[in-house]
C-alpha cells in the first residue's frame, strides 16, 4: 500500500509558486522504476530519477530554463544503503565502493541535474514533518526561498520516501515550480487568491 500523493497545487500556491509540471510514483498498481546505472542495491536513487524524469518530460518547454534548481527532500533518506553499510561494518565485510557516492543524496541529485541540464542550486533536505503533505510543504517552502532570492527561476522539487515496513511501499512526487503571478502575501494558507 502506498501513501496517496498529495496534490501540489494548493501547497505551491501557498508558497507563492505555480506548478508547471508534476508527476508521482506509483501512478498505478505494479508501477515500475527503471534501473539507474551506477546505483546499486537500493530503490531510492532509481525512484528519484524516475519521478523526476516523468515530471520533466511533461513540462511545457523542452529546453531547460536557465537557473532551474533541484530540491530533493526525504524525511528518511536512503534507508537501504544505510542498512547495507551498517551490516557490512558489523560483519566485518568490505563496503561496496559504489555506496560511497550513493550514500549521499547529492549523488542522485547530481544525476538528475546533469541528465536534464538543471544548472540552478542543488539542495537536499530532510523535512521534519511525518506526512507526505508536510514533507512536500517544507520542500516547496525551501524552493520558494531559492526563487524569491533569485538564485533559481524554477525549481524541480522531488519528495521521495522508501517504504518503511508494515506494507508501506516507496512513494515519490516531483513538481516543477516557478514564481506565481499572485504574490504570496495575497494567498491564503490553502492557496486561494484572497482578492477573488
Amino acid at each position, binding site marked *: 500500500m502506498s501513501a496517496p500523493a498529495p496534490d501540489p497545487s494548493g501547497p505551491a500556491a501557498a508558497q507563492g509558486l505555480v506548478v508547471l509540471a508534476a508527476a508521482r510514483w506509483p501512478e498505478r498498481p505494479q508501477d515500475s522504476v527503471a534501473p539507474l546505472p551506477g546505483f546499486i542495491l537500493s530503490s531510492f536513487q532509481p525512484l528519484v530519477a524516475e519521478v523526476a524524469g516523468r515530471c520533466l518530460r511533461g513540462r511545457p518547454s523542452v529546453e531547460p530554463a536557465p537557473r532551474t534548481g533541484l530540491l530533493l527532500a526525504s524525511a528518511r533518506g536512503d534507508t537501504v544503503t544505510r542498512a547495507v553499510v551498517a551490516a557490512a561494518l558489523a560483519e566485518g565485510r568490505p563496503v561496496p565502493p559504489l555506496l560511497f557516492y550513493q550514500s549521499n543524496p547529492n549523488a542522485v541529485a547530481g544525476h538528475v541535474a546533469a541528465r536534464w541540464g538543471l544548472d540552478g542550486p542543488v539542495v*537536499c*533536505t530532510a523535512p*521534519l514533518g511525518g506526512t507526505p503533505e508536510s514533507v512536500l510543504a517544507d520542500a516547496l517552502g*525551501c524552493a520558494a526561498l*531559492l526563487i524569491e532570492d*533569485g*538564485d533559481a527561476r524554477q525549481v524541480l522539487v522531488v519528495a521521495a520516501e522508501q517504504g518503511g515496513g508494515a506494507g508501506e511501499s516507496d512513494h515519490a512526487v516531483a513538481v516543477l515550480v516557478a514564481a506565481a503571478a499572485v504574490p504570496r502575501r495575497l494567498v491564503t494558507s490553502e492557496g486561494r487568491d484572497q482578492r477573488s
Partner: protein
Amino acid sequence: MRDQGTPRPATARRVVLTGLDALSAHGRGAALVSSQVTSGTAAFATVERFGTQAFRVHRAALLPDAGTLLAELAGSVRRALAQAQADPRADAGAAACDTLLLAVHSDEPTPEGPLSRALSARCGLPAVTRLYTTACVAGSTAVADAAVLIASGRADRVVVAAGYLVEPVQYALFDAGRALSRDGEVRPFAADRKGALLGDGVATVVLEAAEAAEARGVPALAVLAGWGRAGDAHHVVRPRPDGLGLARAVDAALRRAGVGADRVGYVNANANGAVLGDSAEVEALRLVFGDAVGTVPVSSTKGVHGHALEGSALLELVITVEALRSGRLPVQAGLRTADPQCPLDLVLDHPRPSTARYALSLNSAFGGANTALLVGAA
C-alpha cells in the same frame, strides 16, 4: 559567465553576524579554533576513536575529548548565543531566535529523541525549522536561506548550526570510495595531492538583521554581504572541470552584495586535496578574478582541520569571519610541491597580515552543488 538574474531588492535588510562558534580537532571556541587553524597547525593523527584495521587509511583530525554530536552541537549553539547576547537562560521568556536551521548528515536518534528535537530542547530554542543534508554545502545553504529570511523581513534572528564528528560509517564509505589520501597527508592545491582526510567540525552562527542587532545594542562581528548558489549540471559526483558552476555562485554572491571581485581580499577555498575538485576550483577562480587571479590571497583550511562534511562549510565560514576580524589570513598547510597549473596566490608558511574588507568562503559538493558566501568587515 555573468547571469542576469534578479538581484536582492533594494529594500532588503542588511544581514550581520552577531554570534559565532566553532569546534575542530584543535578545540572548542571560534577564537581558539581560528587561531590554531590560521597558524597552519595541522591536527591529523592516527584514528583511535574506532578501529581502522579494515581500512586503507588510518588518519583523521579528531578532537580527543569530543562528546556526542548532540552534546557538541548544543555546546556550540550556547556559546554562539552567548556571544550574540541572546542566551535564552539569561533572557527568560524572550525567544533567543526566530528560526533554528540545522545542517547534519541525518536526523539521527539520540537518547533524548531525534537529534533536531533534542538540540532545540537542550538549548531552549524553537524547534528546528529545516534540516539540510546537502553534504559539504549543507551549512552554507542553510546560511543563504537564513539570509533570505532576514533580508526579506520574515525573521530578525536565525541560528544556523552544523556538525559532523568522524564516525565509522562515513569513514568506511570514504575509504571504500578511495577518497581518502593514501599517505595520510592532505595537500590542497599541491601537485602531489592524493585526496582528503576527514575531521571533526561543528559550528554555529547567529545571523541577524542589522537594525535588530543595533536596536539591542549588540555589535556586529561581520556582515553577510552576499550569498550565491549554483549547480554544475555536469555529473553525479565529479565537478565541472571549467569551474563554471562555482564561478556562477560567486558571481551571484558578488552581485547580491553590489561588490566587485576586485574588492575581495581573501578566499577561503573549498579545496580538500582531491585531484579533480581542486583543479575545478582553480578554474572557477580564474573565471571570477580573470587576470588578477594570482593577486588574491587564497587558502583552504581543510589542510589543517580536515573535511568535516556537513559541518565543513559553516566551520570555514567562521574561520573566514575571524580572518577578517583579526587581519590574519590562514596558512595553506600541506603544500610542499606547487602545482604548475595553479596560479593562485596561496598563503604559505605564515599567516598573512591583511586589511581586506571582503572575503569569500567557497564550498562545493557531490552533485555539482556550489555555494559562495561573501563576508564583509563590520
